[in-house]
C-alpha cells in the first residue's frame, strides 16, 4: 500500500511539474468536445434554396411560402432565369432550386396536374436526399391542401385522408444529431486521453534508466501499475466530469438516467483504457512509439468502430466482428443508454460486465509484462 501510494504521489508530481502535459490532459477534451460537437452536426436544416417563380400568381406564392415557413429551408433569393439558379448552385450559394413554371396557378384552378421542378446539388448525397424528402413532404402537403380546397369549392364535401400516420420519435424526439454525438464523443475523448497519458508512463522510466532501479526494489508489478493508474485515473476522472458537464450545459444533451451508473461505467472504462496505454508503454519501452501506437489504437477504433458516428448494426460483417473487441463500443452504448434512454443496469449490465472483463484482462497483461526481466 505504501509502495503504491509512493508511485502515485511521484507520478502526480511528474504531472504537476510538466505544465504542458497537464494542459494537454485538461484542455484537449474540451477542445475536442466543442470542435466535434459543433462540426460533426449531421442535422440537415436551413437548406439554402432559390426560387424561380415564372408564374407569379397567388397559387405559386402559396407554394413557396410553405418553403419559407419551414425550418428545413432558407430562401436565399428569387431569380429570374435558369442561368442565375444554376450559377447559385455551382457557387454553392444554394443547394436547391425550386422552379414554378408559367401557368402553374391556372392549371391548379382548372383542376389539372401542375408540375413543378426541383433542382438539387447532389454532391453531398446525404444532404441532397434529406433535402429531397423534405421538399417532397412540403409539396405533398401543399397539394393536399389544394385538393381539399378544390373539393370544398366544387361542393364535393370534405374527404379525410385515408391514412394518417402519427409519428413519435422516442429518446431523441427532435432527432438532433448532437444528442447522440455528444455522449459518443465522451467515450472517444476518454479513450484517447487515457491511452495517450499512460502511453508515456512506463516507456519514460525505461528511457530514463529508472526502470532498472525500480525493478531492483521490492516494488511488485501490480503495485507499480496501480500506483501509476491511480494518478492518471484522477486526471481522467476530471476529464470525464468536465465532458459530461459540457455535454449537458453547453450542448443541452438530456441526461435522463442515473448519474451514478454513468460515472461507474466511466470509471470501469477509464481503468481499462489506462491499462491499455500502460501495456503499450511496457511493450515498446519507447515513448515515441508508445505515443503513436496509443493514438492509432485508441482514436481509430473508438471513432470508427464504436458506434459513435456509424451505427454498429449497419456495419458489414467484418468491421462489426472487429468492433466487438473495441471497449469504446460498449461504453458508447452505455452512455447513449444512460443519457438518452434513461435505462439502468437491468438493460446495460452486459455492456458494463464486458468493460470490466476488458479492464481486468489488460491489467493482467501489463502486470505480467512488467514481471519480465530486463533481458
Amino acid at each position: 500500500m505504501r509502495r503504491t501510494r509512493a508511485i502515485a504521489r511521484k507520478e502526480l508530481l511528474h504531472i504537476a511539474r510538466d505544465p504542458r502535459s497537464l494542459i494537454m490532459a485538461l484542455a484537449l477534451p474540451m477542445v475536442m468536445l466543442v470542435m466535434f460537437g459543433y462540426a460533426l452536426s449531421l442535422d440537415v436544416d436551413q437548406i439554402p434554396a432559390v426560387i424561380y417563380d415564372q408564374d407569379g400568381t397567388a397559387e405559386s406564392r402559396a407554394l413557396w411560402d410553405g418553403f419559407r415557413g419551414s425550418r428545413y429551408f432558407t430562401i436565399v433569393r428569387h431569380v429570374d432565369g435558369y442561368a442565375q439558379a444554376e450559377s447559385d448552385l455551382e457557387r454553392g450559394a444554394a443547394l436547391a432550386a425550386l422552379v414554378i413554371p408559367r401557368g402553374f396557378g391556372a392549371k391548379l384552378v382548372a383542376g389539372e396536374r401542375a408540375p413543378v421542378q426541383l433542382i438539387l446539388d447532389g454532391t453531398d448525397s446525404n444532404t441532397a436526399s434529406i433535402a429531397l424528402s423534405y421538399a417532397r413532404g412540403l409539396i405533398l402537403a401543399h397539394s393536399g391542401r389544394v385538393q381539399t380546397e378544390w373539393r370544398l369549392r366544387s361542393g364535393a364535401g370534405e374527404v379525410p385522408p385515408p391514412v394518417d400516420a402519427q409519428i413519435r420519435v422516442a429518446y431523441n424526439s427532435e432527432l438532433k444529431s448532437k444528442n447522440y454525438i455528444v455522449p459518443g464523443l465522451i467515450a472517444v475523448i476518454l479513450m484517447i486521453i487515457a491511452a495517450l497519458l499512460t502511453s508515456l508512463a512506463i516507456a519514460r522510466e525505461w528511457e530514463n534508466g529508472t526502470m532498472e532501479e525500480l525493478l531492483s526494489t521490492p516494488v511488485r508489478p501490480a503495485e507499480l501499475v496501480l500506483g501509476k493508474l491511480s494518478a492518471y485515473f484522477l486526471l481522467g476522472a476530471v476529464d470525464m466530469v468536465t465532458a459530461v458537464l459540457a455535454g449537458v450545459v453547453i450542448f443541452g444533451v438530456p441526461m435522463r438516467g442515473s448519474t451514478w451508473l454513468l460515472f461507474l461505467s466511466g470509471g470501469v472504462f477509464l481503468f481499462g483504457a489506462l491499462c491499455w496505454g500502460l501495456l503499450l508503454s511496457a511493450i515498446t519501452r519507447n515513448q515515441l512509439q508508445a505515443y503513436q501506437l496509443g493514438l492509432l489504437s485508441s482514436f481509430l477504433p473508438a471513432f470508427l468502430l464504436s458506434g459513435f458516428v456509424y451505427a454498429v448494426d449497419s456495419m458489414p460483417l467484418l468491421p462489426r466482428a472487429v468492433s466487438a473487441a473495441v471497449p469504446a463500443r460498449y461504453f458508447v452504448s452505455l452512455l447513449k443508454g444512460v443519457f438518452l434512454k434513461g435505462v439502468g443496469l437491468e438493460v446495460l449490465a452486459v455492456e458494463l460486465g464486458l468493460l470490466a472483463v476488458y479492464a481486468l484482462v489488460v491489467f493482467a497483461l501489463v502486470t505480467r509484462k512488467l514481471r519480465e526481466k530486463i533481458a
Partner: protein
Amino acid sequence: MIEVRGLTKKFGAVTAVDGLTLRVERGEVFGLVGPDGAGKTTVMRMLCTLVAPTSGEARVAGFDVTREVDQVKDRIGYMAQRFGLYGDLTVAENMRFYADLFGVEGEAALTEQLLEMTRMAPFRDRYAAQLSGGMKQKLALMCTLLHKPEILFLDEPTNGVDPVSRRDFWVILRRLVDGGLTVFLTTAYLDEAERCGRVGLMHGGRLIRVDTPAGLKQALPEACIEVRCGDPRAARALLRGMDGIASADLTGSALHVFVRPGGPDEEAVRAYLAGRGISDAQARRILPSLEDVFIATIRGEAAVHAG
C-alpha cells in the same frame, strides 16, 4: 555473502558470461574489472535478479537469485551505471520515494543522517536534474542506502565523475564498509580497483583471475621495465623486435616493457636502444600497476587460446 557457481548467460548465440564461479565474504569490497563488453554489468544484473541466468546458480545474502527474488531484493542496494533519479523531483523527494518503496521506518531521521554524511544537506530542495555529476552520484548512493542493505552493488559507480567527487565517494564507501557493509562493484578504472580488497579480472565473459591487488601484481611472472626517451614510439617499435620481450606499450609518456623470465634486464634494454640510435633512453625496473597486470594477463589468456 555472495556465492556463484558456473553462472552463464547467453544472449542468442553470444555468451556474455561464461561459467563464472566466485565467493565474496561479508564486509569485503570486491571489484570486478575488465574492458567494456567483458560481461561485468551482466554479472551484476544477474546477482541483482534483474537478468535471469541461462545456467549455473548464484546465492546473494543466502538467497537464490532465481527462486527467491523478493528476499534478495530486500537485502541488496543496486546502483546502476546510469542511476534512475527523477530529474523533476527534488533530492528529498527522490529519497522519500525510494524510502517508501523499500518500506523504510524512521526515514526522516535516516535521510538527515545520510544528507549530513554526504554533505548534501544544503541541496535537499534542489531538483535532481540540476545537480552536478558528483552530487547525482551521492544522491543515487543515498537512495540505495536508505533501506540499510547488506550488500551494495555498484555498477561503474564513479564513471564520469570528477576526481574530487570520486575521492569523496570512496571516503563515504570506506566508512560504510567499516560499518559492516559488503560492496560488490564493477569498474573500468584500475586505480579504483586498487582500492578494493579483492579484484576479479574479467575478459570475454570469463573470470580469468581473482586475487588481492598486491597478490595480482606479485603473481605476474614477467618483470616490468619503464623506459623514458625522446621518441617513445620509435623505441617501442625497436623493443618489440628484441628477444625476451613479451610486450612494449605506451602508458602516458613512458613505455612499459614486459620482460619474460630470463630475458634482458634494464641495462641490456638501454644498451640495445643506444646501439640502435636512441641514446637518451632511461630504463628502470618498476612495480607493475594493476593496469599492467591486467594487460599482461589478458595477453597471456589470448596467447593460451591462440596456442
